[in-house]
């Protein structure tokens, strides 16, 4: 069974640009979660999508947004990039109402 996949592996942007990160959940999973893992800050919850709807968001500004497609894959968009947005962005998936969240390998975003 294929796990959660994320693309790209690495992304380098300059301040002020926009970044788009992609995630494909485990087959059969309908929920997708996004987390930010920044150095020294641990793992922080960003967004949760289920059945195409945003269900919950963490304490992040509105320039962090995303969506979930009909095939349950998801996209995270970060607008007006700032240096402190440099981090590993992790996507996780679970079955609907499932407790277990399984993570992908992450996308390393570097903002110069």
């Amino acid at each position, binding site marked *: 069974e294929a796990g*959660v996949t994320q693309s790209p592996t690495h992304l380098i942007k300059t301040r002020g640009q926009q970044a788009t990160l992609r995630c494909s959940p485990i087959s059969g999973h309908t*929920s997708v*979660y996004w*987390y930010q893992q920044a150095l020294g800050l*641990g*793992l*922080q*919850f960003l967004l*949760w999508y*289920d059945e195409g709807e945003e*269900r*919950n968001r*963490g304490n992040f500004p509105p320039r962090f947004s995303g969506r979930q497609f009909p095939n349950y894959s998801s996209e995270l968009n970060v607008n007006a990039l700032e240096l402190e947005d440099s981090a590993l962005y*992790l996507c996780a998936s679970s079955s609907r109402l499932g*407790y*277990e*969240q*399984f*993570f*992908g*390998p*992450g996308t390393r975003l570097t903002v110069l």
Partner: protein
Amino acid sequence: QQQVKQSPQSLIVQKGGISIINCAYENTAFDYFPWYQQFPGKGPALLIAIRPDVSEKKEGRFTISFNKSAKQFSLHIMDSQPGDSATYFCAARWGGTSYGKLTFGQGTILTVHP
């Protein structure tokens, strides 16, 4: 405000020893407590998890002990091996209106010496 506090930050254990990592939480809205293992350059991997109506869960060399009244839970790794060297995160899942999201501890870097 840190909702889940994890200790120690780092831990060095000899091969064959027991590794113990502790976590404490404040919020009684948490309804599920997983542990994740993360190797450098990889995403966190779900190791073992427990619900608050259970006091202990064992899977192979890994055991979670859960104390609901003290709001504490811990991970015990028996017979620790060099391959267990990784960063370990405890987490707590929100129920209620914040349902679904995980709040993580700050992580423990475990080094197992051969």
